[in-house]
């Protein structure tokens, strides 16, 4: 029938009430659930913890609570009313009763074929414009744990903004991807980067193959390889370009790409550019992936039934819109069973997961050599820019010559490279301090504390209990704008997302925790979130928190 967030949940809707942990027949993908309660309703989501005989060495706790039906109906009503009012306003604008603030064609051009379709702009001018002040807020300090926001006011309902000249100081930053707190403008990394700028300049505007290859780049690549535990690595200037330009170098026509439903646009673009056949499996659903793998190997290519040249599985470490962590042990087991290749995009999970920050592979206690291509970005946890790919030496040598980014793109800027080198050494502990280790521990504690408190308060939170990305469900379109504005009034900056970036009823506010957040900041934030939650009636959750076994 209709879809719901239950389908997003783990493998299947089976409800076992046994509790023996038997290893599966082939040693791979059978999962056994250990339930807290005796009965289980398929619609009611219960907290369940998985312990699989050999694959998972730690509990995997991921919940996507279902949307309450009343909330769904009210959300649709909200969108319906907004649509009707949108049509009414468009009518008024057309008949010149109301002034049209949007760009229109000149009178002389009205008879020509129109340049744009009005209807495509409907959502922007009627819905987005009304709550536009929750996005693109100008700031005037470094976006660390706290930042300063410029105050702005609008007299024509957000069509134009005017600055009042005041600055709202010390707004708690819950939106930046600042997982380890390296977004700062004082400290070791910054000094090192400044020195390097003096020595190397701001950049050689040339590609790596011509004049742009500096000693710093080679040093960075060796360091990244050592950090990840792989043979070799290669760094690129843009995280998006790392994905979109390297996947076409690895697969082509006659290959198969199995990509997760909620993969980022860079992965999707790279997959499309490569010319391979793309098949999508349900988000984090290992049954769906196994079925696709089996079908692909049994039936081969579509018309000719020849075997596929390569099968590449594209997954991400942490999905930032859902806060879910990929089931990596099962993916690797599947990959080994069906002899496919695995491309892991650790954009959000590198530095944020794992006891020493080495990403989702370390989090599950797996061997990095099992993942064929480890990709990640330096933007989130290292406070820099760019992306990397790590793997076997032959792979990196091949990419050096065949990848579009390597051959044509400008090389990374030396201060950025130095920032990455310093922060990576800090995380690994090689700079002599325990700063990196402290930050990783602080992030893990912050994550656990924040998520637990929010769940106790009664909000609906998506995702894995260890992921530092916390989506809080808002559902209704009016609450998106209200939440953003109320939080700013209370000096907390949040990111809110709505349709069409998320499914229509699942608009959310997304908190990104940071090691730079102290407990006091989190307590303040939680208090304010609770206040706003009571004001806007956001505490939808119908579960009371069951104490976990550990």
């Amino acid at each position, binding site marked *: 029938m209709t879809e719901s967030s239950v389908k997003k949940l783990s493998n299947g809707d089976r409800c076992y009430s046994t509790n023996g942990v038997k290893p599966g027949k082939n040693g791979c993908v059978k999962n056994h659930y250990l339930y807290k309660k005796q009965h289980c309703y398929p619609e009611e989501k219960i907290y369940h913890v998985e312990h699989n005989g050999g694959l998972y060495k730690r509990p995997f706790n991921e919940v996507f609570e279902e949307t309450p039906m009343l909330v769904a109906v009210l959300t649709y009503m909200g969108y319906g009313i907004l649509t009707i009012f949108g049509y009414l306003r468009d009518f008024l604008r057309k008949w010149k009763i109301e002034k049209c603030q949007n760009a229109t064609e000149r009178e002389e051009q009205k008879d020509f074929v129109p340049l744009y379709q009005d209807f495509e702009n409907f*959502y*922007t001018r009627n819905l987005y414009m009304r709550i536009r002040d929750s996005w693109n807020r100008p700031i005037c300090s470094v976006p660390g744990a706290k930042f300063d926001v410029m105050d702005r006011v609008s007299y024509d309902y957000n069509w134009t903004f005017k600055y009042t000249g005041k600055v709202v100081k010390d707004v708690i930053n819950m939106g930046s991807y600042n997982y380890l707190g390296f977004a700062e403008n004082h400290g070791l990394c910054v000094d090192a980067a400044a020195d390097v700028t003096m020595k190397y300049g701001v950049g050689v505007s040339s590609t790596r193959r011509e004049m742009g290859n500096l000693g710093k780049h080679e040093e960075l690549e060796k360091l990244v390889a050592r950090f990840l535990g792989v043979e070799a690595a290669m760094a690129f200037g843009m995280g998006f370009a790392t994905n979109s330009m390297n996947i076409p170098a690895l697969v082509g026509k006659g290959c198969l790409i199995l990509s997760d439903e909620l993969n980022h646009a860079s992965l*999707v673009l790279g997959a499309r550019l490569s010319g391979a056949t793309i098949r999508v499996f349900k988000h984090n659903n290992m049954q769906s992936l196994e079925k696709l793998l089996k079908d692909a190997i049994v039936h081969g290519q579509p018309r000719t039934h020849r075997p596929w040249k390569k099968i590449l599985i594209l997954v991400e470490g942490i999905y930032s819109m859902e806060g879910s962590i990929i089931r990596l042990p099962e993916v690797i087991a599947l990959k080994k069973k069906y002899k496919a290749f695995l491309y892991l995009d650790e954009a959000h999970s590198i530095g944020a997961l794992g006891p020493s920050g080495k990403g989702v592979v370390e989090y599950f206690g797996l061997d990095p050599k099992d993942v064929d291509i480890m990709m990640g970005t330096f933007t989130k946890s290292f406070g820099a820019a760019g992306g990397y790919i790590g793997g076997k030496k032959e792979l990196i040598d091949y990419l050096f010559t065949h990848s579009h980014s390597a051959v044509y793109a400008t090389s990374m800027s030396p201060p950025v490279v130095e920032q990455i080198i310093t922060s990576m050494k800090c995380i690994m502990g090689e700079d002599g301090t325990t700063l990196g280790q402290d930050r990783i521990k602080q992030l893990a504690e912050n994550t656990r504390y924040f998520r637990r408190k929010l769940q106790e308060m009664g909000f609906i939170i998506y995702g894995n209990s260890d992921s530092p990305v916390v989506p809080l469900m808002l559902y209704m379109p009016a609450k998106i704008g209200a939440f953003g504005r109320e939080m700013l009034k209370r000096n907390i900056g949040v990111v809110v997302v709505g349709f069409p970036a998320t499914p229509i009823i699942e608009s959310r506010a997304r908190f990104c925790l940071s090691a730079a957040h102290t407990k006091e900041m989190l307590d303040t934030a939680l208090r304010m979130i609770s206040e706003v939650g009571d004001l806007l009636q956001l505490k939808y959750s119908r579960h009371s928190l069951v104490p976990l076994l550990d």
Partner: protein
Amino acid sequence: YICIFFKCTLNYLFPQVKMNVGVAHSEVNPNTRVMNSRGIWLTYALGVGMLHIVLLSIPFFSVPVVWTLTNVIHNLGMYVFLHAVKGTPFETPDQGKARLLTHWEQLDYGVQFTSSRKFFTISPIILYFLASFYTKYDPAHFIINTASLLSVLIPKLPQLHGVRIFGINKY
């Protein structure tokens, strides 16, 4: 004035500045999944019920007239929103493949006989049965109700996918 126009043009030219914050996901056209989401069938049924109750509360309409009116207004609304309005109310990353398609044609990317298509085909038929019963099969009401039902059933046929008769509503 010029800077307002310029800013508006910028907004018009770069409408990626939207709620697509920090994500660019692979669902190319969200319009295709709207009718499958949780609770929308219930909302639709409640909406029709609401319409009916509002019409019933108008004092000078008799029950047969109210049922025929419900049927006609529902079918008119369904025709306008599912079969007349084309394209998407937001920009999609597929360079406008769905710009000339009505919402019905966009559902599930054109796959026929999915569950939401079946639901939206059956619901005007049920409404028609109820209207015929409550109007006691009166000839005038019958003609109106049948014409209205046909106007909303014929565009749903899979043979008419993408067909524009006499070029009406083509661009």
